[in-house]
C-alpha cells in the first residue's frame, strides 16, 4: 500500500490555497469590466467635447459639392444606415434631441458645403483638443475624412518601467522586461523576474504597443458608431486592429449645425491601458498567491516535520520500551506536552506501566508457584522420611520407592520452573566479563562426552581465541540447553555437530542434529518463554516446559547477541545457532 507521510499529507492540504487565486481572478475580471465601461464613457465625453467645440461652425466644414452619381449612392447608403440606426439596440448614447432627418435633407445640407478640403483650422482645433494616446478624426456626412490628429500608441497608462523602451513604438513587448533601461531594483523584483516572468509570459497575454494603428477605410465607412453619430447619436464601438494585436475603442459624436448633423467626430483609444492593468493585477495576484503558498507550505512543512518528529520519537521509544531483559520503561518523549501527542505518550506510558505490572505479576507468579509447591512437597517428603525411619513391611517399601520417585520428578519440575526465573535474575544483576568462549565450549563438550558416552559429538572449534563479553557460567548453561535440546531430538546413533567460528565480528556457535524439521512459518516462537513444539510424549521422563531455548535467547541477548533456528539445507535435520558479538 502507498505510504503517505504526515508531511506529504499536510502539503496536499496546503494545495487548498489554490482557491485564493481563483477568487482573485474573478475579482480582477469584474474590475476590468468596470474600467472598460468607464473608458467608454470617458472617450465618449471626449468626443462630445470636441464635437461641441465644432458645433454651429459650418464654415469650418466646407466641403466639395457631391457628384450626382455619388450622391445617389450616398443617399441610399445613408438611408440604409438611418434605418439601421433606428433599429439599433438603443444603447448608444444619445446626445442630442435633433429631429429625424431624411437622406434628402442631409444631402441638401451637404450640397451647400464648400468644395474646399478640410481647413487648417479644423485640424488645429482637433489637434488642440486631442489627448495624448488618443486619435481623433472627423468625417463629413459623405464619409470624407476632414481631419486626423494624434496617435494611438504610447499611451497605455502602464508603469514607465514596463512600457516598451523609448518612443520607437515598435518595441517587442514579448521580450523579458528585465531588458528595459530601468530594470528591477529590489531583490524581490529580481527574483520575481527570474522565477515568474517566464510563467506569466506563458499564461498571460501582455498588451503590446506593436500593433497596426492604420486607420482602415472600412473602419470609417462601416463603423456602426460613425453611422450612428451621423444619424445624430453618440456611440462607442470596440474593434480589433487589422493585425489583431490590440483592441481599439472608438467613440463617435455628431457635430451639429443648426438642426443638422454636418459631421462626426471620432475619438479612438487602444484598450491597452486596461488590458495592461488587468494583466498587471493578475501578475501581482499570482505572485502574492505563490508567495503565500510558499510561505504557508514552508510553515506547514516545519510544523509537519516537528509533528512527525515527535510522533517518530514516540514510536521509537514505544518500540524499545521493553528491553532485552524484559524490563518495561516509561516513555519520556512528549510526556509533558499538553497536546494530543502528549496524551498519547501518557496513555502509552500508562499502558506500559500496566504491562510492567502484569509482567511483574507473571514473573512473581513463577516464584510464588515454586514457593507454594515447595511447602506441600516438603510435607510429603518429610512424611516419607519419617516413614522410612519406621519398621515397614516390604510391600510398603515398594510404595515408598514409587512415592519418592514421584517426588523427585515433582522436585525436578519445580526447580526447572525456577531456573528460567533465576537466570533472568542473574541477567539483571548483570555481572559481565570478557572471556574466551572457546574455553567454555571446549570444557562443556568434554563434559558431555564423559556424561553421554553413547552420543557422538563432532566439534569444529576455531583455532584462535574468541573473546566475548558476558558471563561464562550463563553461556555454559545456555550451551547445556542447546545440547540437551539436540540430544532429545537427535535420531539414535546420529552425530551432533557443534561448530564455533568467527563470522563478521561475531562468534557463531551452532549445534546441529539429524532429526525432525522445524515447522514452517514466520511465527516460530521457539525462543519465547513456555513455548514447546515437541510432539506430546506421555512417556517422557523429563518434563518439558519450553524454557530451555528461552534461556538460550536470554543469555544470547545478555551477550548482545541473538539466537536462531533453521532447518538444514538438505532437510536432514535442524541447526540452532547463537551469534555473539566479539570484543575487539
Amino acid at each position, binding site marked *: 500500500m502507498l505510504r503517505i507521510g504526515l508531511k506529504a499529507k499536510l502539503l496536499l492540504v496546503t494545495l487548498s490555497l489554490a482557491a485564493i487565486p481563483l477568487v482573485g481572478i474573478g475579482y480582477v475580471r469584474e474590475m476590468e469590466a468596470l474600467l472598460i465601461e468607464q473608458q467608454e464613457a470617458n472617450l465618449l465625453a471626449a468626443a462630445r467635447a470636441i464635437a461641441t467645440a465644432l458645433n454651429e461652425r459650418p464654415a469650418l466644414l466646407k466641403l466639395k459639392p457631391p457628384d450626382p452619381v455619388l450622391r445617389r449612392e450616398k443617399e441610399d447608403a445613408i438611408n440604409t444606415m438611418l434605418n439601421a440606426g433606428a433599429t439599433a439596440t438603443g444603447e448608444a448614447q444619445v446626445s442630442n434631441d435633433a429631429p429625424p432627418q431624411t437622406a434628402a435633407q442631409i444631402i441638401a445640407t451637404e450640397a451647400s458645403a464648400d468644395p474646399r478640403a478640410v481647413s487648417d483650422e479644423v485640424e488645429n482645433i482637433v489637434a488642440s483638443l486631442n489627448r495624448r494616446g488618443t486619435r481623433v478624426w472627423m468625417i463629413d456626412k459623405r464619409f470624407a475624412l476632414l481631419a486626423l490628429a494624434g496617435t494611438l500608441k504610447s499611451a497605455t497608462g502602464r508603469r514607465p518601467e514596463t512600457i516598451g523602451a523609448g518612443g520607437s513604438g515598435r518595441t517587442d513587448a514579448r521580450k523579458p522586461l528585465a531588458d528595459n533601461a530601468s530594470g528591477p531594483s529590489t531583490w524581490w523584483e529580481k527574483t520575481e523576474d527570474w522565477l515568474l516572468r517566464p510563467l506569466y509570459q506563458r499564461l498571460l497575454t501582455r498588451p503590446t504597443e506593436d500593433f497596426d494603428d492604420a486607420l482602415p477605410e472600412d473602419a470609417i465607412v462601416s463603423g456602426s458608431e460613425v453611422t450612428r453619430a451621423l444619424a445624430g447619436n453618440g456611440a462607442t464601438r470596440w474593434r480589433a486592429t487589422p493585425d489583431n494585436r490590440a483592441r481599439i475603442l472608438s467613440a463617435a459624436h455628431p457635430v451639429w449645425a443648426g438642426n443638422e448633423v454636418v459631421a462626426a467626430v471620432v475619438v479612438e483609444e487602444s484598450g491597452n491601458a486596461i488590458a495592461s492593468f488587468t494583466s498587471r493585477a493578475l501578475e501581482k495576484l499570482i505572485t502574492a498567491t505563490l508567495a503565500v503558498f510558499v510561505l504557508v507550505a514552508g510553515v506547514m512543512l516545519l510544523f509537519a516535520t516537528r509533528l512527525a518528529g515527535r510522533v517518530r520519537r514516540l514510536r521509537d521509544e514505544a518500540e524499545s520500551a521493553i528491553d532485552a531483559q524484559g524490563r518495561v520503561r516509561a516513555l519520556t518523549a512528549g510526556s509533558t506536552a499538553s497536546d494530543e501527542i502528549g496524551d498519547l505518550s501518557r496513555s502509552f506510558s500508562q499502558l506500559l506501566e500496566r504491562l510492567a505490572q502484569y509482567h511483574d505479576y507473571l514473573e512473581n507468579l513463577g516464584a510464588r508457584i515454586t514457593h507454594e509447591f515447595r511447602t506441600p512437597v516438603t510435607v510429603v517428603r518429610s512424611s516419607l522420611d519419617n516413614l522410612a525411619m519406621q519398621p515397614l513391611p516390604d510391600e510398603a517399601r515398594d510404595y515408598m520407592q514409587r512415592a519418592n520417585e514421584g517426588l523427585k520428578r515433582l522436585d525436578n519440575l519445580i526447580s526447572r520452573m525456577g531456573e528460567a526465573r*533465576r537466570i533472568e535474575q542473574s541477567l539483571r*544483576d548483570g555481572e559481565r566479563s570478557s572471556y574466551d568462549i572457546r574455553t567454555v565450549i571446549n570444557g562443556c563438550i568434554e563434559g558431555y562426552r564423559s556424561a553421554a558416552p553413547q552420543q557422538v559429538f563432532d566439534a569444529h572449534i576455531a583455532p584462535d581465541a574468541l573473546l566475548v563479553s558476558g558471563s561464562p557460567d550463563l553461556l555454559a548453561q545456555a550451551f547445556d540447553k542447546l545440547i540437551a535440546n539436540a540430544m532429545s531430538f537427535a535420531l539414535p546413533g546420529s552425530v551432533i555437530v557443534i561448530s564455533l567460528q568467527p563470522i563478521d565480528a561475531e562468534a557463531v556457535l551452532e549445534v546441529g542434529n539429524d532429526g525432525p524439521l522445524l515447522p514452517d512459518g514466520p511465527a516460530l516462537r521457539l525462543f519465547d518463554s513456555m513455548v514447546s513444539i515437541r510432539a506430546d510424549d506421555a512417556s517422557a521422563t523429563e518434563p518439558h516446559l519450553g524454557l530451555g531455548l528461552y534461556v538460550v535467547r536470554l543469555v544470547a541477548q545478555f551477550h548482545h547477541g541473538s539466537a536462531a533456528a533453521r532447518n538444514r539445507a538438505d532437510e536432514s535435520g535442524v541447526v540452532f545457532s547463537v551469534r555473539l558479538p566479539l570484543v575487539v
Partner: protein
Amino acid sequence: MAKRIALIEDDAAIRANYADAIKKHGYEIAAYASRPEASNAFKLRLPELAIIDIGLGSEPDGGFTLCRELRAQSATLPIIFLTARDSDFDVVSGLRLGADDYLTKDISLPHLMARIAALFRRADLANEPKSQEEILDRGPLRLDLKRFLATWNEREVDLTLTEFWMVHSMAKFPGHVKNRDQLMGEAKIVVDDGTITSHIKRMRKKFIAVDDAFDSIDTVYGMGYRWRAAS
C-alpha cells in the same frame, strides 16, 4: 542431657514432621508457629540450636527478625535457615544476619540431621582444647574437619557448613574435577545447578575477602569445579 532444638515453622504438617524426626534422633524439640511466640520463649530460655523458616505466617520476613534477635542474645548459637525461598537475595540476607547455614526445604530429613549433628559438633569443640585434631592442609588452606573451621594463610574464612563441605570436597583431591552432583552429595544438599554456581561465587568472594590473589577454585565449564593446587 538432650540438646534442645528450637523449630520455628508456620506450616503445621512440616512442623510436626520435623519435630518427630528431631525427637527420634534424641534431641529435645521446642516447636513454635510464629515469631512472637518464639521470641517470648527465647526470653526465658535459649535453645542450643535454632531452625528458622523465613516466612512466618503474616510476617514474610519474620525469620530474619528472629535471627537478628537470637544473634543479639547469643553470638555462638547455631542458626539454620530453612525455607522454601531460594533466591540469591534471600540467601545473602540470611547469611549476613549471622545464620550458620541456609537450606531450602527440599533437603531430606537425614541430610538435615547430619547438618544438625555437625553444627553441634562444631559448637561443642569450639569451647574445648584442641586435643585430637583432624586437619587438612593444602598450602595456605587449612581445614579443621572437627570444628568445621577454614583458614587461609592462617586467617579464618567464615564459611557456612554447606560451603565448608564443598571446599573440603574439592580440596581433598586438588586438581580433580568435582561435578555438581558430587559437590551436592558431599555438602548434603539438593539444589539445582544455578544454586551451586552462586554457592561457588560466594565462596570465592569469601576467600578473596581475606586474600585478593585467591584463585584456587577453578571452574571447568560443563564438568564442574576443582581445587587448583597452590603454585
